[in-house]
């Protein structure tokens, strides 16, 4: 790579070796892009298995069929792959990106605890009551929105 618009390599001791000779697959941007693509693929496949599990019994096979169990098993297996892809994605981030990401995850977990614990107590005393399905959906939406907002805030803070 030419530095500062010249083709000359900087002199030794001037802070020389930019990673021009580094293979493409070892470079940071390439590794991040690759792990992001892998994570996207795994997420897509996982969402597909969730759809299969949710809508398969309604349109592809009879309710109570063994296929429903197989779809659930497939969803769990793909979920494990998704977790590993997520772990790899985190490992390939640089330290600031990782900090922003982990901060966002911490805020999400904290928010869920703050919302869920009082809700569970109020539910126990019949102050509030939501159907289980609605409560789980609400929780997933809450987690997603909190994570997204925290991630955007973190990126803006260190922009």
């Amino acid at each position, binding site marked *: *790579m030419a530095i*500062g618009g010249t083709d000359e390599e900087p002199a030794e001791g001037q*802070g*020389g*070796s930019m990673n021009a000779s580094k293979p493409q697959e070892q*470079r*940071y941007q390439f590794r991040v892009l690759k792990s992001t693509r892998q994570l996207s693929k795994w997420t897509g496949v996982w969402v597909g298995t969730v759809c299969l599990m949710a809508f398969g019994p309604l349109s592809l096979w009879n309710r109570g069929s063994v296929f429903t169990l197989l779809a659930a098993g497939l969803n769990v297996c793909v979920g494990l792959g998704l977790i590993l892809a997520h772990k790899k994605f985190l490992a390939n981030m*640089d*330290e600031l990106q990782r900090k922003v990401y982990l901060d966002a995850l911490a805020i999400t977990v904290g928010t869920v605890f703050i919302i869920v614990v009082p809700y569970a107590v109020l539910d126990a005393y019949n102050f509030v009551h939501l159907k289980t399905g609605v409560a789980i959906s609400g929780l997933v939406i809450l987690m997603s929105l909190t994570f997204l907002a925290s991630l955007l805030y973190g990126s803006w803070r*260190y922009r």
Partner: protein
Amino acid sequence: MKNRLKVLRAERNWTQAELADALEVSRQTVNAIETGKFDPSLPLAFRTARLFALRIEEIFIDEASAQNGDGVNAEAGARDKAVAVI
């Protein structure tokens, strides 16, 4: 913690993207370090020092010891002031 990363980069006519590529971090990280919003880890500080062929304390300045007029840090601080004046 202050640092001289922006000055050192400017001396070599490197862009933030080029420096980020050399340090294997994102451009956002280089910018955050330069503006003092983020302090790098020790491995990244070592990588930076190696790239510029300087000692870590010639790049990163502990503000407490700089105020006490401490050795290399004070020297680096004085150099920064001189560059700023120029």
